[in-house]
């Protein structure tokens, strides 16, 4: 069934989060206002990205990042125009122009930049194509999405959206079961992470760290989207009347009642 919608309603950050959590393989195709974007993933990791007609070839990426000079770039275009990026990469490594790490790091940086551009798209129809993989001649990377997701969420400035996500600062936070490893956090994010505990409300965390409501919402939003924390009722909050513990007889009565309801619903 379909994974499709409009960026107006489901942001890039949320899509990346979903792809990451579901370990999806395939290509996210986005029809933006003036360009089309293709972002491919393998098992929830970023593999490839291209926006519009931009030349994302290896030669172009290495030239833009000053790994090869203008003459080398021209020579590659002239002499190796028909070569795939994979073949060109091997050629450049064997010739000693670049290392394997140079290639991977520059491609990763390029693809991450493409995603950064996507974060500015607020309108566009998206669909996820399970069977669609990047072009065979292009080099794929394998980049964790968590840091990209956190960075993307930093760019969200709309207070209204943040308030929708986190309606009350009187809720607390707790860590999820996902391990907090290989995640790059900013100083302010660390300040919040340090106080993640069901005993501390977000309002208290903000006050302690002298963060504004918007700032703490923005940070918590990033952590939530990356799946690192979840919202919980504060540990010392009074339980509503209905949650007060029942005595043994009340439990037995309630069980009988629920059994009656089950029997009745089954018979409908």
């Amino acid at each position, binding site marked *: *069934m*379909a*994974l*499709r*919608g*409009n960026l*107006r*309603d*489901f942001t890039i950050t*949320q899509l990346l*989060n*979903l792809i990451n*959590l*579901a370990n999806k393989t395939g290509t996210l195709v986005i029809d933006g206002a003036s360009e089309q974007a293709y972002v491919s993933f393998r098992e929830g990791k970023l593999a490839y990205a291209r926006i519009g007609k931009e030349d994302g070839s290896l030669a172009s990426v290495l030239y833009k990042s000053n790994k090869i000079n203008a003459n080398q770039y021209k020579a590659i275009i002239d002499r190796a125009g028909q070569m795939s990026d994979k073949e060109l990469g091997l050629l450049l490594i064997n010739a000693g122009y670049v290392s394997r790490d140079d290639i991977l790091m520059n491609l990763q940086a390029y693809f991450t930049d493409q995603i950064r551009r996507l974060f500015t798209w607020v309108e566009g129809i998206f669909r996820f194509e399970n069977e669609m993989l990047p072009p065979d001649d292009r080099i794929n990377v394998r980049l964790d999405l968590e840091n990209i997701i956190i960075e993307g969420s930093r760019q969200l400035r709309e207070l209204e959206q943040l308030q*929708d*996500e986190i*309606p*009350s600062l009187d*809720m607390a936070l707790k860590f999820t079961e996902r391990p907090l490893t290989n995640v790059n956090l900013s100083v302010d994010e660390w300040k919040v992470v340090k106080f993640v505990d069901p005993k501390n409300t977000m309002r208290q965390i903000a006050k302690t760290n002298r963060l504004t409501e918007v700032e703490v919402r923005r940070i918590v939003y990033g952590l*939530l989207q990356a*799946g690192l924390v*979840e*919202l919980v*009722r504060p540990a010392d909050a009074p*339980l*509503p009347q*209905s*949650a007060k*513990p*029942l005595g043994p007889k009340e*439990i037995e009565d*309630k*069980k009988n*009642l*629920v*059994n*009656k*309801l*089950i*029997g*009745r*619903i*089954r018979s*409908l």
Partner: protein
Amino acid sequence: MQTVKMVVTGPFSAGKTQFIQSVSEIDVVATERRISSEEERTVKSATTVAMDFGRITVDQDLVLYLFGTPGQKRFDFMWEILSEGMLGFIVMVDSTRPETFREARSILETFRAYAPTPFVVAANKQDKEDAWELEDMGHALRLDKNTKLLPCVATERDSVKTILLELLYSIMSEMEGS
């Protein structure tokens, strides 16, 4: 006569009224009004402004009431009143409208804060071609693995029965664990 209640909540046009209608033994007392907003009118022509009200008589001493909350945010002052004393609640989500998922999550968290009673999430309109897969919805709604996210077609009585039964099983298992 003892009465118990369950609440059916969820975003605007998620299928709450239809859900209750499918199992209620009385015509649902729906307080619907014509939609005034142009954007909302494109989705459906009338909506619940106070609450829906359905009934299932269990025996001469016990009646189950199903209350449907108004889906539009400007009526959320009703939610706390409706949630008081409920046995459990169902969050309806339209599987074909990802733009409502964020609101559904917000509603779910609000209801959990009002009353930490058992609940299930019903992914409605799973019979539609453009419905999201349950797994994707679970991630989008940030549900933990213990939360029941169930496929639902609110127009089908058997599907609605399954949702109600799953909620009752959750209530039972919570009691057995206490």
